[in-house]
């Protein structure tokens, strides 16, 4: 027997066996087609989820973590409550006065962003100040990084005691 004879012999196998093998192909094709039908909806479903999530995000009210309320956004330093408003202020004690310029030692707990704890404050002429006076200083917020620090003073008040 030759290979060709065997091949032709196989060609003569019963019809039902051939159809059985044909059905296996049909079944596989149907399953694949069915799977593909679902697959084509996957990108659509993904888009829907993205749109839904985006919509939810946009309609939600902005939420701020209370931990970061009243914080300086740049320095990330806690801002004292009295600094909130149109102008900033701090309290301190006059350490020295020279030619209308006082060196004020910042009260503990104040940090105006200068390198040290002393600031030069230009005193108003209508009030008499002495070394050792307690003062509240209102300033614009600009601080030069010198020592003692330099600020643009808006107003200076004598106070009886430190808050």
């Amino acid at each position, binding site marked *: 027997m030759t290979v060709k004879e065997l091949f032709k012999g196989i060609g003569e196998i019963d019809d039902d066996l*051939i159809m059985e*093998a044909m059905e296996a192909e049909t079944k596989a094709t149907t399953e694949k087609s069915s799977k593909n039908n679902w697959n084509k909806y996957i990108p659509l479903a993904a888009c829907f989820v993205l749109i839904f999530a985006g919509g939810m995000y946009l309609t939600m009210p902005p939420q701020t973590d209370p931990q970061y309320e009243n914080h300086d956004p740049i320095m990330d330093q806690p801002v004292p409550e009295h600094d909130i408003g149109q102008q900033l202020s701090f309290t301190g004690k006059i350490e020295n006065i020279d030619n209308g310029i006082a060196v004020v030692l910042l009260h503990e707990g104040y940090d105006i962003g200068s390198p040290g704890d002393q600031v030069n404050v230009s005193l108003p002429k209508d009030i008499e100040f002495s070394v050792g006076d307690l003062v509240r200083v209102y300033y614009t917020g600009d601080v030069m990084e010198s020592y003692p620090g330099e600020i643009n003073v808006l107003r200076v008040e004598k106070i009886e005691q430190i808050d």
Partner: protein
Amino acid sequence: MNDQAIIDLYFKRDESAITKTSDKYGAYLWKIAMNILRVKQDSEECVNDTYLSAWNKIPPTRPKNFLPYLGRMTRNISMDKLDYNTASKRDRKKQTPLDELQDCVVSKQAMPEEEVSSKELGECISQFLREFDKEKRVIFIRRYWYSDSIKTIATMLNISESKTKMTLSRMRKKLQEYLVKEGYRI
């Protein structure tokens, strides 16, 4: 249109029978030819020859199962074409199902004193195949009747290629033993 209606058109010598056959089974026949020949132009030629052969044989033949009937013709025509191509020393480097079947037979030339009847051999192989479960039968028939690739069969049946190869190898060995037992000289 069902198969018997198409066959009736052949009996009426209505040429639309060819078109109807092509519409329904053209792709299936082309695939069989292509699996054997692996050349598009030759495969198309074999499928057209199948239609011509069906036109010449029906009537008087009235096939019970049109699909296997046409497939068998395409297979045989493609086989002859492959023989012709091989004889013309055309290159055939790829391993075909036919090469694998060489495992089952020893002789390359037909024995002068005997001529194997394809019909009887087909019946014998059918008996052999019925001894296996459906999956193994389908693997064997898809490979050696439809000439599907190993990969195609593995994908179709959702099994690994190595399992497909192993199944085929074992079945070829068993077929050889079976044919010897049935008195075939291989």
